[in-house]
């Protein structure tokens, strides 16, 4: 079988019928925008529910350490919400898929994923840690006053989340490194190009 035969065979398949009518496209387009808006709304609602909770304890808790810890947790959640809002891909511009060639588009997607994964300490897990540690210590202090054993047992609520945080960070770091290798491959493909094709 010659290559031209293969091309003819390839081009002979496939129906030219559009899978959606214009009306269905309009409906799906509207649903797409609603889905994005709902996703953003869910994040803001979660923050709106949690922040007053921590502010309440920051205001009313007896121990100063507990008050500061809850205040820091509320501030960390607000910071996280701001970062999520800033980093969320939101609705991609409708023409973005055509303005970038395939290489540039693919690389931009991978870079966004890599940055989201590798920056998780600086904007997602990291800001929660000071408030979390302070609240945990504030909970442990009265227990230590009761008995050393009870105090030590209460520290399990510090150690367990710390292990989970560490695992999440480790997995994300590995995933970011794998994505970086794919970016390197794409950059190599770009640099192999003797003259730049138009973007």
């Amino acid at each position: 079988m010659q290559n031209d035969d293969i091309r003819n065979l390839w081009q002979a398949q496939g129906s030219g019928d559009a899978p959606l009518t214009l009306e269905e496209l309009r409906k799906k387009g509207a649903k797409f925008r609603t889905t994005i808006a709902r996703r953003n709304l869910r994040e803001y609602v979660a923050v709106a529910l949690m922040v007053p909770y921590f502010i309440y304890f920051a205001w009313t808790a007896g121990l100063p350490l507990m008050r500061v810890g809850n205040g820091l947790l509320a501030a960390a959640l607000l910071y996280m919400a701001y970062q999520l809002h800033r980093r969320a891909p939101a609705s991609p511009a409708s023409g973005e898929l055509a303005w970038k060639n395939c290489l540039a588009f693919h690389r931009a997607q991978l870079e966004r994923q890599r940055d989201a994964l590798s920056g998780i300490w600086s904007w997602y897990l990291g800001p929660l840690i000071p408030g979390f540690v302070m609240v945990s210590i504030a909970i442990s202090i009265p227990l230590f006053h009761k008995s050393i054993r009870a105090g030590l047992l209460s520290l399990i609520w510090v150690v367990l989340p710390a292990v989970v945080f560490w695992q999440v960070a480790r997995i994300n770091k590995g995933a970011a490194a794998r994505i970086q290798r794919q970016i390197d491959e794409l950059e190599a493909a770009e640099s192999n190009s003797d003259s730049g094709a138009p973007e």
Partner: protein
Amino acid sequence: MEGKPQDQRYLEAAAAYGAALHRLAGAYEADPDKRRDLLQEVHLALWRSLASFDGRCSMRTWVYRVAHNAATSYAISQRRSRASAWIGLEEVSAVADPAEGEQAAGRRHSVDRLLALIQQLKPLDRQVILSYLEGLDAAATAEITGISPGNVSTKIHRIKNLLTQRFQEGVRDAE
């Protein structure tokens, strides 16, 4: 801006490239149900994009860029859940053809074998082989993919060798 010019452009593009988009979806997704969903996603992306069509490139380049970019996004998200590996054109010759050793052509259709070959390629190589199969020249493929015409020509040379090797073997097996 989702008014009549956008709809008109979409209808023209769908009429001219609908069959090519159908084939493209098949090259990115093997499962028939998911393929249908992907094809709808590609058409939706195309319709949305045409609200901002500004003539900066030809309609053909626009349509193929949107389709490949939408399908690549889909393939990346699917790959995360399936953890399947993609390979490059350089490596694909070393990987056994699933139909090899069978009395091939009669048992497995050539198009299916071609699709199976394409579906395991990395996105960039997949885009080049699809452009070749659709009859696009090196310059048009370069404009769509972003690699130089020289690099496209090198890849096409490899693709031709690969297809010759795979499909002539298939014919000999059948004989």
